[in-house]
């Protein structure tokens, strides 16, 4: 490769900063969110994305306005990477009227339809057919938007995985299925769920271009996704991406995750996606520590402000609830 081409392909400082900001923002959201949960301010379920930040960060950085994402029950990271308003996310978790779903949905159902976020989903694997459907809608409309479903090793063992990815394939849809392989379906190992734990091979079996990537490397995810998006816009979709990763804790906040081997956890923590985004930014741009600190400080403040905003917000009233009672 000539030196000029290599330079052209090198990540820009702007991109590197964006990747770090996103990954760090997810980390803060989840870490601080768990504290709010422990304080009893957040009720219901809370499935942290800790350890998997590199995937949503890299994938969403390669998308543009007009594209669509469908998420999972572990969806906070996807929302943030997609550019969601942290205020409205926290407000939703605190069941306030100012939340994305006005307090009707909660952690597992945050959605922003008008901005192309079809939402998190309480049913593992359900985002796959919904995402393929959105890609079909775009094909009917005749635009070049790309739809991405974030799914998982757990979701890939659901029947709709094959059914809907196959539909995307026969109809050449502009669709990317991202399998976040964190090795566990709740507590069951992927090796106990399938004889072939390299899940990208399932796409190959039905004629779908498929790749595997280190999900803890935001830049690698971004580069692969950028190419996938390009191919989709050229009508060469769908594409499957398997991103290997590992949760930093159990399935949800009240699952200690004792079944996760310490050695393996340590291996992935050494390859922490947020650290890698930070290192890439500092090493490739020469940005100094004070600037990094300033970025981190601003993100933490954004979260604190969101908590204050949410605490000050009101809950939906029973009178407003009547709107749904009457129309259902």
């Amino acid at each position, binding site marked *: 490769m000539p030196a000029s081409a290599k330079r052209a392909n090198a990540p820009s400082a702007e991109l590197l900063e964006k990747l770090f900001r996103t990954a760090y923002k997810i980390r803060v959201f989840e870490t601080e969110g768990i504290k709010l949960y422990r304080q009893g301010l957040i009720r219901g379920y809370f499935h942290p994305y800790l350890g998997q930040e590199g995937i949503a960060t890299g994938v969403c950085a390669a998308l543009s306005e007009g594209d669509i994402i469908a998420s999972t029950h572990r969806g906070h990271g996807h929302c943030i990477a997609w550019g969601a308003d942290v205020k409205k996310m926290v407000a939703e978790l605190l069941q306030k009227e100012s939340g994305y779903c006005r307090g009707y949905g909660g952690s597992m159902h945050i*959605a922003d339809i008008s901005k192309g976020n*079809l939402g998190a989903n309480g049913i593992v694997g359900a985002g796959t057919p919904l995402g393929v*459907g959105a890609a079909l809608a775009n094909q009917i409309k005749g635009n070049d938007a790309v739809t991405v479903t974030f799914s998982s090793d757990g979701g890939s063992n659901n029947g709709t995985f094959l*059914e*809907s990815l*196959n539909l995307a394939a026969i109809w050449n849809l502009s669709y990317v299925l991202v399998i976040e392989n964190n090795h566990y379906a709740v507590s069951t190992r992927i090796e106990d769920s399938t004889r072939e734990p390299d899940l990208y091979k399932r796409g190959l079996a039905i004629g779908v271009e498929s790749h595997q990537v280190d999900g803890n490397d935001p830049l690698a995810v971004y580069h692969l996704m950028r190419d996938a998006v390009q191919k989709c816009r050229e009508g060469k979709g769908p594409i499957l991406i398997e991103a290997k990763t590992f949760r930093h804790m159990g399935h949800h906040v009240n699952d200690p995750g004792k079944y996760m081997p310490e050695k393996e956890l340590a291996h992935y923590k050494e390859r922490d996606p947020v650290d890698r985004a930070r290192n890439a930014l500092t090493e490739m741009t020469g940005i100094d520590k004070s600037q990094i600190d300033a970025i981190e400080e601003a993100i933490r403040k954004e979260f604190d402000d969101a908590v204050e905003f949410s605490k000050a917000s009101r809950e939906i009233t029973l009178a407003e609830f009547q*709107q749904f009672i009457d129309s259902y």
Partner: protein
Amino acid sequence: MYRDALREAIDEEMAANPLVFIIGEGIAERGGSYKVTEGLLGKYGPKRVRDTPIAEAGMIGVGVGAAIAGARPIVEILYVDFAMLGMDMLVNQAAKFRLMTGGNGRVPFIMRTQGGTGGGVAAQHSQSLEAMFYHVPGLKVVIPSQPADAKGLLKYALRQQDPVIFLEHKHLYMTKGPVPEGELVIEFGKADIKRPGKDVTIIAWSNMVPRALEAAAKLAEEGIEAEVLDPRTLVPLDKEAILASVAKTNRVVIVQEAVRRGGVASDICSIIQEEAFYSLDAPVEIVAGLNIPVPFNLELEKASVPQVPDIIAAARRTLHLQPRALAAQ
């Protein structure tokens, strides 16, 4: 014919709205098992009229996703029995999306399918499953008995914003009936009196409507004037029309082909006893399918679902012309 009326509705709405499309098994080149989509592929092309693999959960889910993203899908499922494969997408996704998103998301999705007994197609191709969908808040349940209703209700379904379970009946596709010329749109939640009468109200839907009408004609020979009321949509249900008819006749027979246990008839009965108790001159009669899977043997199939004499006997019981059957031992 009923199937032509359905085709007209789809055709007219596809012509009017480029976001309307239809997917299903064998619906494109073949025109569908019941010929509802015949000719649409030639007219609208393979982008908007698509065959699918046999993958009900996938195709229903893809339809729901397309609706959320702003298109107007019609998903044709060959038999309502097969819709059971896609229940997650209907029950957990489509039905709940509007509320879960605080009203921001809408799902203008239509699943067209057909049910009912059909002359020896056995237990997995004969069910009447409207109660399954009726039970789930968020789904509209439409169940037309006549060609004009089929057309008008399907056109309305394609213009409103909520997921619709559109239940046809395999025995009705070839039935004839007048369909008015020009624009025909029938709003949901409006029952239709298929035959006026003053002595007893027979509430029936789908293929039980022609049977109720036949029963009413026979009852008329005895001087009994039965009113046949077809709700046309079970969700929303036209309670006002039902209560008005009960107030007039003071006697009610509810007929459903579906099994009796946990059925829509029982729910309508509960509404009547709650809101029209003092209008009733006799206990509400329910004529329903037996609580069993439908057998293949034709005589047994016939014995499993309501027949005209069953409806006549029930009507006579409400008029105290026939003793009530003793409860089963």
